């Protein structure tokens, strides 16, 4: 109960900060939309590349990438908020006040999901207005958004682990860059078999490829390797949860 109370309070604070501070809110909304417009609009002709046979069309193909990307980065940007709390001394007071400090982590996770939810809603509306075809059933689409929520959690746990260990905004590139690389060394523009050989080799080893392929199969209405994708994302969550909790313990040991 105490954990949930702490989580709710921290989550509410993160959401309040995000939705009342334009400099935090606008980039989180604008960048995914911009990527979607640039990729789905500018590259739609890629649909005609021999060997590209995604049934729901290029807009849906790109939508899944941008949806997962926005989820991961909403988690990462929440990590910036955690760092700010440490830099301003708020985290020290928070740790003194919270009877269960894992609740703090869960609260940040609630904040990350909340900030992404608005982005996902706007992105979905824009994609549908742009004529995106959805072949998947309600269950498929629910699974797609569930996958994205879990990716959001992965992004948050990774960045929280970094934030709580380093406790400075100078660590921002360390939070962003691995996520950025993992996302872009995956089949972003075309299916994995159409990538250049060197990128295909990396992409096939990259778990993000599995998530993208599962997400795309869900929106197309032909689910494929969805169970493996969920297993992979749960494994990532388990690993990064340990990473984040150990980071929390290090922050506690350092006195916030």
């Amino acid at each position, binding site marked *: 109960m105490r954990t949930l109370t702490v989580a709710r309070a921290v989550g509410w604070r993160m959401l309040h900060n995000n939705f009342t501070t334009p400099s935090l809110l606008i*980039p989180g909304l*604008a*960048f995914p939309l*911009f*990527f979607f*417009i*640039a990729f789905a*609009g*500018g*590259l*739609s*002709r*890629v*649909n*005609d*590349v*021999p*060997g*590209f046979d995604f049934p729901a069309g290029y807009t849906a193909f790109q939508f899944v990438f941008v949806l997962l990307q926005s989820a991961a980065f909403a988690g990462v940007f929440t990590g910036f908020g955690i760092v700010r709390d440490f830099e301003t001394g708020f985290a020290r007071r928070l740790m003194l006040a919270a009877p269960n400090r894992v609740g703090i982590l869960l609260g940040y996770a609630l904040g990350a999901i909340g900030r992404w939810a608005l982005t996902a809603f706007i992105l979905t509306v824009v994609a549908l207005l742009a004529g995106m075809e959805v072949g998947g059933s309600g269950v498929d689409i629910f699974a797609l958004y569930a996958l994205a929520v879990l990716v959001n959690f992965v992004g948050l746990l990774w960045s929280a682990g970094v934030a709580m260990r380093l406790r400075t905004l100078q660590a921002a590139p360390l939070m962003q860059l691995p996520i950025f690389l993992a996302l*872009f*060394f995956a*089949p*972003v*523009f*075309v299916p994995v078999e*159409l*990538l*250049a050989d*060197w*990128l295909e080799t990396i992409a096939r080893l990259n778990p993000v490829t599995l998530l993208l392929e599962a997400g795309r199969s869900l929106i197309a209405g032909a689910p494929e390797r969805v169970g493996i994708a969920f297993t992979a994302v749960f494994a990532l969550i388990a690993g990064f949860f340990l990473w984040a909790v150990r980071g929390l313990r290090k922050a506690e040991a350092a006195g916030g």
Partner: protein
Amino acid sequence: MTAQILHLARRSVIRTLRQPANWITPLVFPLALMAVNTGGLDAATNLPGFPSDSYLAFFLAFPFVQGALFATVNAGVDLARDIQTGFINRLALTPMQSGALLVGHLGGVIAMGFLQAVWYLAVGLAIGVRLESGILGGVVIFVLAVLIVLAFGTFGALAALRSGSTEAVHSLFPVFFVFLFISSMNLPRNLIETEWFRVAASLNPVSYLIEAIRSLVIEGWNAQALALGFGISLALAVVGLTLSALSLRSRMART
């Protein structure tokens, strides 16, 4: 005046070199993005009408323009910091001519732009790109790349002089980024299927800067592409320089 310009240009270059993030990012990030896009969109060369059989050669123009963007924002931030810290006010107490500040600052930006252009072209050639326009084409690419850096640099300086705020200059980055992505950077304009995007890319001056450099790499000598590229970058430079000079006059008011 020449001595003043040289002093300020030297200061601008040294300050950039002392902040590794300011020169490592422009050298590495555009090439990383080039690697990702080239690996991901290599299959686009199979589209009927694609102008090259190498996506790498097609995309090589991109780092020149993105690098110019980085150099511009970094230099604009440095100028804004000079304003925030009062350095410009102290300069205003000296006999230095205000024009020397702008030219010296832009000299530093141009020097960085030139180094970046050398790096991008060297990497491109090392990984197998051959210039259809030959060695002379390489020289023209350097000149155009420097002109683009100058053109963008004047707008970075303008933002710094108008706002006097590093945050405001940083906020220019996404704006430039939009111009970069809503352009013909990924596909030639005639192969962009979505009509509004093709129109936006055709109205976007950045498309013509990219296409001018690209023409030297994959086509040889295309007079129209070069005229548009040089003309637009020159026009941007003149407009940016004029507006910056006017802003500088009020910023350096010695009253």
